[in-house]
């Protein structure tokens, strides 16, 4: 216990000295905020965002449980809990958003060689390299295993040709982890490999995709005779499907957390404030019994979901097919949240343009439309139900 207490004191003083003023409670609201994804192309409106990332990255505290030899913090579970508590106490901002952390690192730790771990993990942890995910193709979405991007064996290298779609932030990423076909098309699951590719390699190009919300992270990614060293193959040749599925579990775990995170959507207002504004307020209550009831029921579900996510996290263990339960629930809940917000805002909830509507209202409409994609991206709700029925409930297929 004393050891942990000492650790807590160390963390407290380190945070005190190293967490910049704009990255904690009491931050000056006029200072612009950055969404910090790191990478070679990163730009910062607030230089303290980069300073904070560098300091936390140096400590390895962006991935606190990963071993120090790979650049991680080397902390125990109890120590991570203390770190999170102390960061929460000062309202410290998370230093790094990262597909590398959420999806690739767990897979590297389980399937990568020592060389690959030492090469890639430190850069992920420090936010030096930004990753994107090359899974879906125009002809292979829900039936991902039918993917056709080919990686031909040409000696020391693979020659990659094909196309990926819905690649989030491909135009901003430095490297991509891609599923490629290295074996025959049948049986389709046995011909897939997991390959890391530098986006700067000759022959790689991207094109952004715009959604109805006006913006989206999605891109198309093209591979035209791209030469990739065989050292970038993760795991065994043609054994990539298993790795792909493990990664998807990690992805679905992190998507579930967004079921809670986007409680405000992009409207800038939480649903209760929105309701009071549009429906009126009496004695501190929303003056509409129907909506009080709907909003309360919604918040109860949200609270229960948050507690269940926390319990799953505390119970630890590896990512599993249960991640599909959380992804399914979190995304459907987020869609309902936005439906409810639009309903609460009445006619103003479907504002598209014009001066009669303020920016919050127009953003609310666009956010609502964007959530339609939530039950498609990261594996459709139908795919999640398939996983749950087969892998969690063991129902016969």
């Amino acid at each position: 216990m004393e050891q942990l207490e000492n650790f807590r004191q160390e963390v407290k003083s380190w945070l005190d000295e190293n967490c910049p003023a704009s990255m904690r409670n009491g931050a000056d609201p006029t200072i612009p905020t950055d969404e910090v994804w790191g990478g070679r192309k990163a730009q910062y409106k607030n230089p303290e965002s980069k300073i904070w990332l560098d300091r936390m990255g140096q400590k390895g505290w962006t991935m606190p449980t990963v071993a120090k030899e790979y650049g991680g913090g080397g902390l125990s579970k109890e120590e991570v809990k203390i770190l999170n508590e102390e960061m929460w106490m000062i309202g410290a901002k998370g230093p790094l958003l990262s597909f590398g952390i959420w999806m690739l690192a767990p897979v590297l730790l389980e399937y990568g060689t020592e060389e690959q771990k030492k090469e890639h993990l430190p850069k992920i942890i420090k936010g030096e390299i930004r990753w994107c995910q090359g899974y879906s193709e125009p002809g292979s979405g829900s039936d991902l295993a039918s993917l056709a991007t080919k990686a031909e064996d040409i000696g020391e290298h693979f020659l990659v040709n094909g196309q990926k779609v819905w690649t989030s932030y491909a135009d901003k990423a430095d490297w991509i982890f891609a599923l490629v076909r290295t074996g025959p098309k049948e049986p389709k699951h046995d011909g897939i490999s997991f390959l890391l590719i530098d986006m700067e390699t000759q022959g790689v190009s991207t094109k952004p995709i715009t959604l109805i919300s006006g913006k989206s992270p999605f891109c198309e990614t093209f591979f035209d005779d791209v030469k990739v060293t065989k050292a970038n193959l993760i795991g065994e040749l043609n054994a990539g499907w298993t790795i792909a599925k493990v990664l998807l579990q990690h992805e679905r775990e992190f998507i579930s957390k967004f079921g809670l995170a986007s409680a405000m959507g992009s409207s800038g207002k939480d649903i209760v404030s929105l309701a009071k504004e549009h429906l009126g307020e009496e004695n501190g209550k929303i003056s509409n019994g129907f909506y009080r009831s709907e909003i309360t029921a919604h918040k109860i579900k949200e609270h229960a979901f948050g507690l269940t996510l926390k319990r799953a996290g505390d119970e630890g263990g590896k990512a599993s097919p249960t991640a599909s339960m959380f992804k399914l629930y979190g995304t459907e809940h987020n869609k309902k949240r936005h439906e409810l917000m639009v309903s609460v805002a009445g006619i103003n909830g479907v504002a598209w343009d014009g001066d009669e509507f303020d920016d919050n209202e127009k953003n609310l409409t666009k956010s609502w439309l964007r959530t339609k994609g939530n039950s498609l991206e990261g594996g459709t709700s139908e795919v999640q139900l398939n996983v749950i029925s087969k892998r969690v409930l063991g129902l016969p297929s």
Partner: protein
Amino acid sequence: MKLILNEEQQFLKDTAKSFTTEKTPVNHFRSLRDSDDHLLWDKEIWQEMVNLGWSGILIPEEFGGSNFGVAGISTIMQECGKTLTPSPLFATAVLGAFAITHFGSQAQKEEFLPKIVSGEITTALAIDESSHHNPAKTAFSAIIKDNEYVLNGKKDFCC
């Protein structure tokens, strides 16, 4: 309203279908939306609807209407909806016509209903005062002064 249309109702539906697909396909809506004039509807199109008798469908024959009833106007509205046809049909031939026919005095019916049938006037229903429909909380006022109503207030989303 029976779900199976009688001969007259089917005729109305067929007429409305060819009208809306030929004269007001979705592109018509889009070009109005994108025009700088911010027209709400095309005046010539409305006149053609009037000539077809659509403005008088809910209005009794004594005022010049055809009294085909709700079933009749509904089939027309359905076809208009399919191509997003912008027109004052709903506001005038449905809402205005219905309100005056059922709640107007004889004098009001005689004055306004024939003008709706002829297309001389269009009407709009002004109830909502905010983003939600809440007639109980009406702030808009009509005060009698010198034998007239003096109106004060604001209405939103009148259609």
